């Protein structure tokens, strides 16, 4: 009994620790998602209760909604690590091994165009831009003209993101320094600002930010980092990042060009 008990207690203790750890590691992603959301909840609660001094409406609905958000964020991050990151990197390695730049560039264009053309945020911005154009009497204030304008704008932005990813991938292949290209892009945007019609400028500047969606970003980042790590002489930190920067810069330029054609 005396000789046995220390062993048993060690065994039990270990077991307790592992159970505790397992439970903790299972809950940890959820706790992290809670922590990610805590600031939004705090800001909204503070402004509602202290500044506006109003009660929080539909309290139960909000609680259920928060649980949905936490569960969704947790699943999304798990899925990133299991699906989006590995496939982005696997494809980058496969293209690098295959050695065909033409296919890689076509893939980059397809990814940029395909992910942007159906982007809901872009559809919303394009529709709003059409109303602005109609009120500025650039196009006729009828549904047909507005739809045509919005469609043209969406195609322009999608095309420009496709072109941006081609330039971005070419840069990784060739090892061009990013900042010269981006600074050149900024200068082009600034020069265009003085020639583009005034009502398009706000939309053009905003369109850079709305093109990169939640699924495109991880995929494109994994592609860039994967390419930079599989090509000799490229540094994943210096050369792998930067694709998103191109994808958010080029729509500004092309949308202003689009505005000038009317």
């Amino acid at each position, binding site marked *: 009994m005396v000789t046995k008990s220390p062993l048993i207690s060690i065994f039990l203790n270990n077991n307790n620790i592992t159970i505790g750890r397992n439970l903790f590691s299972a809950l940890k992603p959820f706790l992290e998602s809670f922590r990610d959301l805590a600031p*939004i909840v705090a800001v909204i609660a503070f402004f509602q209760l202290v500044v506006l001094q109003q009660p929080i409406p539909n309290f139960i609905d909000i609680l259920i909604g928060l649980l949905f*958000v936490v569960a969704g964020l*947790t699943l999304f991050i798990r899925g990133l690590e299991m*699906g989006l990151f590995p496939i982005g990197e696997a494809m980058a390695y496969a293209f690098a091994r295959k050695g065909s730049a033409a296919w890689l560039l076509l893939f980059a264009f397809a990814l940029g165009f395909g992910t942007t053309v159906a982007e809901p945020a872009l559809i919303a911005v394009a529709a709003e831009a059409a109303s602005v154009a109609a009120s500025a009497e650039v196009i006729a204030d009828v549904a047909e003209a507005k739809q045509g304008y919005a469609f043209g704008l969406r195609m322009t932005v999608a095309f420009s993101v496709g072109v941006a990813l081609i330039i971005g991938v070419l840069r990784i292949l060739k090892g061009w320094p990013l900042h010269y290209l981006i600074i050149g892009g900024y200068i082009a945007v600034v020069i265009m600002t003085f020639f583009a019609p005034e009502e398009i400028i706000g939309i053009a500047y905003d369109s850079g930010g709305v093109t990169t969606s*939640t699924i495109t970003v991880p995929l494109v980042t994994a592609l860039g980092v994967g390419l930079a790590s599989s090509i000799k002489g490229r540094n994943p930190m210096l050369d792998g990042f930067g694709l998103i920067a191109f994808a958010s810069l080029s729509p500004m330029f092309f949308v202003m060009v689009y505005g000038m054609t009317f």
Partner: protein
Amino acid sequence: MDWLQLTWDTILATIVDVLPIIVILFGFQLFVIRRPIPNLQRVLVGFVYVLMGLALFLVGLEKALFPLGKLMATQLTDPEFIARVSGHVAETLRWQDYYWVYIFAAAIGFATTIAEPSLIAVAMKASDVSGGAISVWGLRIAVAIGVAFGISLGTFRIVTGTPLHYYIIVGYSIVIIQTFFAPRMIVPLAYDSGGVTTSTVTVPLVAALGLGLASTVPGRSPLIDGFGLIAFASLFPIISVMAYAQISEWRARQKQSTLSNQDETN
């Protein structure tokens, strides 16, 4: 029933959004690369997680946070509220009287950026690639500070009605100058962090704020002045991320020099 319907609709909408990406990925995989995908089953499960996760996330936001956040944006920009807290009559409001709007803009910009899934993804990747030299939280907080400052300045611009492009040009000039002084490794990541900040969570709330302000401030048109906040939110993180790296480098150098000073005195 309402919840179920909304969840189902959102899942379908998310699938439609993701469909082009899936077609492109698997099309190239099958016809160009012609190699089996490693761990195919795991990757597919991952895709299902991403889809379901994004759909649940959007439903939750739509039900819980967006209605309240948007309502709040309209209430805070309401001239009556501004007149009440500032003690001025609605016709004689000055830009200083909108201080709660600026504070709200900064707070909501910071908070939504911390929860932005695409920023979490990029931060995870950056921490991974840099071997932990860039911490996930360091990057996320640096970006969030940039967005907070950007959106706050953006609301100030709408209230005062100054032209957007002046701010953007000054912002670009700062970025260009910083580029030549910041640690080389951070520059590409900093440029990228401009584009990732504004997606699922930030855009709807910020758009509501811009629209609310532009339609209530006298002399502003929601169609012209309502735009521009997203542009601010994607410009200032570039500056704040480079600044974060510059400050970390400077502090590391300070520490090193005090250490070597100590060595000398010893």
